[in-house]
């Protein structure tokens, strides 16, 4: 029983002995690579042979009308949903379809849900503590101690997401926007190579949005970021490359302006706005 092996591996009990998670191989370009992915829920094709590549360090926005399959796509990448066909690669080494959610997460893919989900019963601090990139196996977690170094890291992030003041309050009392940030903060604690951010600015004020924009753009470069968003203004403000999903497959891809002028896109999507 794998669980017991784990208990008995003395060498794994101490973090510093634990082998570091295998690095993502991006020598051949893209960090994330979806090919001909399709999935359907009782007849309805949510994703219809979708092809998508994200380059290392890129900031990509994904837009599309409701039911275009944005969230489902995220589910597939993070291992929550298994596609019927197609392949999903993280770098050129890791086939994500073969991995479980925790594996994928520990490979360095962080995800922020559409509806902000934080551990409401725990304090902001504890939320970040749990998110911290450490040995996530049972006994190490049981015996883990809060070192000064960890505390620093957490405090950095707290400052970054502007929740230092609420450090020791239960996350349950945070406002919607604050929860969004806390969740982003948790992603940061994970030190992921790839962030999947689902509607980060929903329910945020103008200023909050700007800060979030800074935050995400700031991240891009050392980390790859995929943002799914409805708010066109926000997308414009951060977008370099935009992908338009429609009925589960890519409709158009390019800079915001290119996309905005794409006739198909205008028809199916921007049409309503323009």
């Amino acid at each position, binding site marked *: 029983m794998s*669980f017991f092996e784990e208990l008995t591996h003395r060498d794994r009990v101490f973090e510093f002995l634990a082998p570091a998670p295998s690095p993502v191989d991006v020598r051949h370009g893209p960090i994330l690579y979806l090919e001909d992915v399709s999935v359907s829920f009782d007849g309805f094709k949510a994703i219809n042979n979708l092809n998508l590549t994200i380059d290392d360090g890129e900031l990509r926005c994904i837009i599309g009308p409701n039911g275009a399959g944005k969230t489902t796509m995220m589910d597939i990448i993070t291992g929550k949903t298994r596609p019927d066909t197609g392949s999903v690669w993280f770098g050129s080494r890791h086939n994500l379809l073969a991995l479980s*959610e*925790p594996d994928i997460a520990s490979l360095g893919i962080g*995800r922020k*849900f559409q509806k902000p989900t934080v551990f409401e*019963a725990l304090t902001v601090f504890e939320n970040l503590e749990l998110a911290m990139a450490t040995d*996530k196996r049972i006994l190490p977690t049981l015996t883990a101690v809060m070192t000064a170094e960890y505390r620093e890291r957490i405090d950095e992030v707290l400052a970054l997401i502007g929740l230092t003041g609420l450090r020791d309050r*239960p996350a349950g009392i945070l406002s919607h926007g604050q929860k969004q940030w806390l969740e982003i903060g948790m992603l940061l604690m994970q030190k992921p190579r790839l962030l999947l951010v689902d509607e980060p600015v929903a329910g945020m004020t103008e200023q909050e949005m700007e800060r979030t924009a800074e935050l995400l753009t700031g991240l891009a470069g050392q980390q790859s970021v995929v943002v799914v968003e409805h708010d066109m203004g926000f997308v414009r403000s951060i977008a370099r490359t935009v992908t338009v999903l429609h009925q589960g497959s890519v409709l158009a891809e390019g800079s915001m302006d290119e996309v905005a002028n794409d006739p198909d896109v205008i028809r199916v999507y921007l049409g309503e706005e323009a």
Partner: protein
Amino acid sequence: MWLTRPLQERSTQVFLGVLFAALIAVTALHLLMPQDSALYVSAYTVTLLGKYLCYALLAVAVDLVWGYLGILSLGHGAFFALGGYAMGMYLMRQIGDRGVYGDPVLPDFMVFLNWQALPWYWHGFDMAWFAFLMVLLAPGLLALVFGFLAFRSRVTGVYLSIITQALTFALMLAFFRNEMGFGGNNGLTDFKDILGFDLRTDATRLGLFLATGIALAIGYVICRAIVVSKLGRLSVACRDAEARARFLGYRVERVQLFVFVVSAMLAGVAGALYVPQVGIINPSEFSPLFSIEIVVWVALGGRATLYGAVIGALLVNYAKTVFTGVLPDAWLFALGGLFVLVTVFLPRGIAGVLQRRRAAAGPREATA
């Protein structure tokens, strides 16, 4: 050392303080007071208290999984009973040839059902160390296998509760069968002595009572240690947002499995201490209703506050003792009424009431 962490924490210190004070007080009143004094604690009472403490430990075990992991197990009676049977088998073997039929090896019920030889699973139980090991392993393994299957396939919430119920129900039916070789409905009884001490002497009773008290203390500390550790916070995290915990890279099912197994073992110990004190173990301990009752103790005392579970267990069972004596016809009304009122008006149990002054909200208490 993670295990000793709770000892620095005031709540645990207070709990242990009160517990040990009570143990000492009872011991003193039992040994020093003259028989006729109003303060004298009779052996009957000592055993009774011992029984309550077993229940308290059981309740703590349930609170660990329900309060902090959100797994409502309606089958913890099964682990309790398994521990009890392991102990019971040891005690049966200790009777030796003092049984009614004077058979040196076979327990009485086997003799008069014409069993020729001891079934294989009865071997080894004549050795205390083996039996006591089994007290931990039997429930532990069951929990491991069951939990492994259940959590791996992400059976959660009500579904989990119901299949835990199915588990204990199936076990009850199985143990009722005389072919199983556990004495069927009559179970195991008429024990003589444990580790060489005569179970009928008051000294042994007191000893068992104290042992139970200490077991409760240790059990409490273990649970507390888990709760205050990062794993404890992780458990709460899994309870409230399982998916999020997964996407943070935690193997939720293993967290659940680990805590579940620990809890099952504690339940087993409680059962093992229970049997020599009440003097019988029979399949009715597997009955689903008993398991539900345990949960009710916890709810009454206050969920996710280990000491609350203790209070709940003691209170309900004390009430039971009093009612069944004072108003036998009406005690079910009282008990039932109690359950309803508590769940409706004290959602966070007695502990909740006690805490109300404090700002921090219920589950926060876990990490205090």
